[in-house]
């Protein structure tokens, strides 16, 4: 019996706004001491009222537009009622039946191993809600701790249709969604920090069947790799259950990273009645077509399109183009440097080579680079006009990164300018020839490579600053002179 996998993903994206969803508390809670980013509203104190964060709504609409969704003119918030110690008010303000965005899609390449090509994965809806507080449990100690910093942080939920057919397709969808929210700047999208959380709904059915099988919900996947592995595992597990004559139980299962298995967490038979009703403390929102058009105009060119453009217009390789287009800040840095008069191939090489190495060592993002596009362009100009050799330029780049200095200043301060003064080099050539009689003899007897050896000596003597081509020419001239002299000797 051949089975087909059916996967839907629910992704919670923490929005990168300055304030929380319904109050003015700073939304950046990650590094803060517990319970220092709170106020009566996000604490849910008696008498507190929510007020809508406009930017969070805009970010959600932008994401909906990027996912090809319809933005309805009328939308509202609803209360989702349930009791739990991490839920301050005893209800979460969310969206139930009239979300901000509906009926979109993402195009993935498809799982070619299954014979599936490029196609659309449906996005059911994108809605906005508030995050809950963080609980820390101490089993056996008799208490748990509540950190309210995260309570009220804006959370955008993207719900896909159950259109993915394998862990690979889920990976493609997630990667693309991740790239989009980063590109939009609506989220840092860091799974490890909890900014980008993925839950999956998985079921299998006989190939050709139109009826959906019983699904399980898989949670606690904290990296893209974990999502892939968990989905692969769960599909196999469900198939084994069925082939053993059993039936898949509708339940929530958690991915256990250390054991690489999913484990049943609770049965979903008793589903909580959330008693959704429209949030009476917040007016409904009317987002007119003009406002939607304004926001649509803010959409950037996303990674796939940008990479394609780099390949077509700038003749970059697919590999390089994908890397440069990979993040919005990388791509912007690249294009800015290009406007400051440098060639695409050069900039690409430096950005993906030495600059990337320096940034990675520090775990820095490119927008924190001390080497600005202007400075990189200036450095490349110094190479182009012969002031610096490529290898010297690398040294200068390291200095620029360490000090944030201008390339021209560094070259001047350290006397690193390429020596193109013939006289200066000739002195070094004479010294090299005098110090290496064997090499001279080799050259005279026909070994042309000896010239290169002597050129290397000249470079060493000039601390690498001699202009290489000039040095080689002068060495050759010097050697030729030796030859003729030699032949003139009686």
């Amino acid at each position: 019996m051949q089975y087909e996998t059916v996967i839907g993903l629910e992704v919670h994206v923490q929005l990168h706004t300055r304030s929380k969803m319904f109050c003015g508390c700073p939304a950046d809670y990650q590094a803060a001491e517990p319970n220092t980013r709170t106020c009566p509203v996000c604490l849910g104190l008696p008498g507190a009222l929510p007020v809508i964060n406009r930017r969070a709504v805009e970010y959600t609409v932008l994401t909906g537009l990027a996912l090809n969704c319809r933005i309805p003119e009328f939308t509202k918030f609803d209360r989702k009622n349930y009791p739990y110690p991490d839920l301050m008010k005893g209800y979460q303000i969310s969206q139930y039946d009239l979300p901000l965005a509906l009926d979109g899609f993402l195009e993935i390449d498809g799982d070619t191993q299954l014979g599936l090509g490029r196609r659309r994965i449906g996005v059911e809806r994108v809605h906005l809600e508030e995050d809950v507080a963080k609980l820390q449990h101490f089993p056996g100690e008799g208490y748990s701790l509540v950190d309210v910093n995260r309570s009220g942080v804006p959370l955008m939920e993207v719900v896909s249709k159950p259109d993915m057919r394998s862990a690979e397709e889920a990976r493609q969808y997630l990667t693309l969604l991740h790239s989009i929210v980063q590109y939009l700047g609506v989220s840092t999208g860091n799974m490890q920090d909890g900014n980008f959380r993925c839950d999956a709904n998985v079921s299998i059915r006989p190939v050709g069947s139109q009826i959906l099988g019983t699904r399980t919900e898989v949670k606690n996947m904290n990296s893209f790799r974990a999502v892939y592995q968990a989905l692969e595992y769960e599909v196999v597990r469900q198939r084994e259950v069925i082939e053993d004559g059993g039936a898949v139980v509708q339940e929530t299962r958690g991915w256990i990273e250390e054991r690489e298995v999913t484990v049943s967490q609770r049965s979903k038979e008793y589903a909580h009645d959330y008693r959704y009703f429209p949030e009476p403390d917040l007016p409904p929102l009317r987002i007119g077509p003009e406002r939607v058009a304004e926001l649509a105009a803010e959409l950037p060119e996303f990674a796939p399109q940008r990479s394609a453009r780099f390949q077509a217009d700038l003749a970059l390789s697919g590999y390089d183009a994908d890397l440069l287009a990979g993040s919005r800040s990388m791509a912007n840095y690249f294009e800015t440097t290009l406007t400051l008069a440098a060639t695409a191939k050069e900039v690409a090489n430096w950005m993906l080579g030495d600059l990337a190495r320096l940034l990675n060592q520090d775990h820095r993002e490119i927008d924190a680079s001390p080497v600005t596009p202007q400075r990189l362009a200036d450095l490349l100009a110094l190479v182009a006009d012969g002031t610096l050799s490529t290898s010297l330029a690398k040294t200068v780049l390291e200095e620029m990164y360490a000090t944030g200095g201008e390339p021209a200043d560094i070259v001047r301060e350290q006397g690193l300018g390429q020596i193109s003064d013939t006289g200066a080099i000739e002195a070094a050539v004479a010294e090299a020839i005098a110090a290496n009689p064997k090499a001279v003899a080799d050259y005279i007897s026909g070994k042309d490579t000896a010239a290169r050896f002597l050129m290397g000596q000249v470079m060493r003597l000039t601390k690498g600053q001699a202009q290489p081509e000039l040095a080689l020419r002068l060495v050759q001239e010097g050697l030729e002179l030796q030859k003729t002299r030699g032949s003139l000797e009686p």
Partner: protein
Amino acid sequence: MGSSTEHSAYGPTRNPWALDRIPGGSSGGAAAAVAAGQAPASIGTDTGGSIRQPAALCGVVGLKPTYGRVSRYGLLAFASSLDQIGPLTWTVADAAAVLQVLAGPDPRDATASTEPPPDLSRLFPGNVRGTRIGVPRVALADGVDPEVLDAFGAALAMLSDRGAEVCDVDLPHMQYAVPVYYLVAPAEASSNLARYDGVRYGHRAKLDGAAAGVSEMYARTRSEGFGAEVKRRIMLGTYALSAGYYDAYYVHAQRVRSLIRNDFDRAFAAVDAVAMPTTPTPAFRIGERIDDPLAMYLGDVFTVSANLTGLPAISLPAGLTQARLPIGFQLVGRPFDEATLLRIGDALERDAPWSDERPPAFA
């Protein structure tokens, strides 16, 4: 909660006019304090009549502003779409002065109007010449105390003498106001009161043994911490919102709520204010209705419409019964038109023979 201020954890509050009677509720204490001369003004909240009804039973002025006129930030929420804060005072001019201070935009309340309130000091002395007052006669047919009806008629006659035009208006859906209110208000309350769970503040039940978990803590804390009337409303509200009943009860009630508002909007094409008694009866005795919550709820018949529609409403003293118990006269106005209500109220108050009456025990 409740219409009698008998259920408080501090014990019942007494009506200054007759100490064996209720002052009304739920802002019974606020009304009693002003009536007894203990304070020149007080502030109450009105969700279904909780300012106006005690004002009527205690013989003082009680004003529920338009929903959104006064910020609700800082107010312990009961029913979020109905609650409004307002003044209880001896005179209409005092009510205007207090409202002037309370009213205004607040960025912390998304339901508060962003328009600043008008200057209410220029309304007085109130002139009612040409002001049109509508009376929903059908609504007054059943269950209203004859003395209350007489006082109501007398007040209308007085206004008419001063030049007001009194006519009939039709509010056909007003008969559904109480059932609609007792679905919508408890539903919202059941959600608003969920935060009182013993986790962060307030009472937390003492649990025996380490075996007890969060669910037991919640159940015991809330059983101990909430009074009978509150529990009743939480249960009603949870039921009305629950799966399978939400559409039939909560949604349906909200739809009828719109119909009630439409009735008033149509009436305001012909009149400037709608007049009704504030309560069907004067103050009853303490303990008389405590075992009959339904009878208690039915007493809200004239007040809940203003909350459901969000319209401003004022209760004005309209004399005393034979037994020297106060009776209230109520006016409901257009959205954000407290000015008209205050103007008419002042006209009524100016020459009314009862305006100098004081509770005998506190004169």
